[in-house]
């Protein structure tokens, strides 16, 4: 993301500063959205059965009667000291709950990310080949169209095909109860559902950049002079691609973070995303706050990385 404030500060200082400010803003937004809108944690715990006096007592006990900014400060301060509070539902520390779910999500996200990267590379190679063969054609229509399809549709279509028609994998991806590594076959549906839309998005954003880079005069010139394709890609195409690719990476990481909530819930895969959705359903605010902020931090970290790489403009 270009950050063009006219200032003398170097990028290496500005980018982390901006990321920190954004994280602060996100923490306020997450806290405000979960705490300050009508219906607080006491209502959720009371579930409509508690009397007004009981609710008031509960609010005083949990500090819900204090002003909003004070509660936000207390939450943020505790978070900085490694205390994310306790689940309203089970009373267990939020960090334990999330920690128990993270390995499963890490396996899923890493596999999906690997497949996405592979598919984006393949898609960009195809876009590049097409650009060389048909210079007037803008291309990228298919990938752009696919980004419009809701992810739940991808999930349903894959389940109908792989599980319903072909019978290769079970329609639900249950983890072994005692922990341990998941059976690879249960990963197939969630990983494909996560990777296909992300890859379509990546190709839609990056394919055009590849095609443009290949159409530049010095690239066509090098091709005519008979410079080896590998060297052209390394010296003329890759440097132009680095910054947009990192930006696409940020979008893909964001997509995988949000998509894991959907995909894990649909396929019954007990990861952090499923925990987020089930916590939203029972209004377990501390868990939602921590997972919401954690997801945002992951996206911001990749955006920071994208910010640190200088944009090379060759036009």
């Amino acid at each position: 993301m270009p950050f063009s404030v006219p200032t003398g500060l170097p990028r290496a200082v500005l980018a982390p500063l901006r990321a920190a400010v954004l994280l602060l803003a996100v923490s306020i937004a997450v806290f405000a959205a979960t705490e300050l809108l009508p219906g607080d944690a006491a209502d959720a715990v009371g579930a409509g059965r508690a009397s007004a006096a009981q609710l008031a007592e509960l609010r005083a006990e949990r500090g819900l009667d204090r002003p909003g900014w004070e509660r936000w400060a207390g939450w943020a301060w505790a978070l900085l000291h490694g205390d994310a509070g306790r689940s309203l539902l089970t009373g267990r520390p939020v960090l334990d709950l999330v920690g128990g779910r993270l390995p499963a999500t890490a396996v899923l996200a890493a596999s999906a990310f690997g497949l996405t990267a592979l598919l984006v590379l393949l898609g960009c190679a195809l876009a590049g080949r097409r650009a060389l063969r048909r210079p007037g054609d803008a291309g990228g229509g298919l990938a752009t169209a696919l980004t419009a399809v809701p992810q739940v549709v991808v999930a349903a279509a894959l389940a109908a095909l792989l599980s319903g028609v072909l019978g290769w994998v079970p329609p639900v991806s249950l983890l072994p109860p005692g922990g341990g590594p998941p059976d690879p076959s249960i990963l197939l549906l969630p990983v494909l559902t996560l990777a296909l839309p992300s890859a379509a998005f990546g190709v839609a954003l990056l394919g055009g950049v590849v095609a443009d880079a290949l159409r530049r005069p010095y690239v066509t010139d090098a091709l005519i002079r008979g410079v080896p394709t590998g060297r052209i890609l390394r010296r003329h195409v890759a440097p132009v691609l680095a910054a947009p690719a990192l930006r696409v990476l940020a979008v893909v990481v964001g997509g995988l973070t949000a998509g894991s909530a959907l995909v894990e819930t649909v396929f019954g895969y007990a990861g952090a995303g499923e925990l987020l959705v089930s916590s939203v359903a029972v209004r377990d605010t501390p868990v939602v706050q921590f997972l919401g902020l954690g997801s945002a931090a992951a996206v911001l970290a990749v955006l920071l990385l994208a910010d640190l790489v200088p944009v090379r403009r060759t036009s």
Partner: protein
Amino acid sequence: MSRISLALAAVLIAVTLLGPALAPYDPAAPVIAPWQASSSGHLLGGDVLGRDVLSRLLAGGRHLLVLSLVSAGAATLVGTLGGLAAGWGGSRVLATGADLLLAVPVLLPALVLAVALPGDAAVVVATVMAGAPLTLGVVRDATAGVREHGYVRAARLRGERTLAVLLREVLPAVAGVLAADLGLRFVTALQLASALAVLGLTDAPATGDWAAMLRENLAGAALNPAALAVPALLLALLSLAVSAAAHAGLRHAFGTGDSW
């Protein structure tokens, strides 16, 4: 291409809105065996509780469609008002921040909002949050573009008030961009609404909901694939048709370039 997608979108929207009246059976009542395959009386078979899939499909698009339309309309309205003001005043507000928003996965804010708000409201608010800044950027640039055109200058020199110039001269000039933008916001809203419906967080009606049907019938994929495949197909067709029409509209409005 754009005519076909526009026509397809119009037909789908019409069928969706009229659908509940056309349903052959009560979409909320079990009438056959669960996940029974298609037969002559029940073209698309039964769902998880033995309700008629065809009837539920006909009845199950309206809530999703209306919710997406309302969300998209709200996002475009907010973005248009901001964009007209910013483009007219020559402000570069949000110029650097808007592309950042593309990286924000809109489902996450929607989930966080769904803790305190009803699911439907969360869809509307998240769509506006994610979409309005993008609309604002597009409308701002379009407004700045027509600001110095002869007819706009003429209206200003006639002494018309700024609001009148914006509404009567500028808004019609950017209407094509707005229509295309509304389509893009609709696609985002539909993705979001169907995601929250699948997660069981919206107020999906008992008569059926295309997205909720996907989750209900996932386990029966082998017994009655139609109960899963047809709602998925309808959702895909609706989003593809609207998205293609919107992209064609943008190409038309901006020459050849395709802009997000």
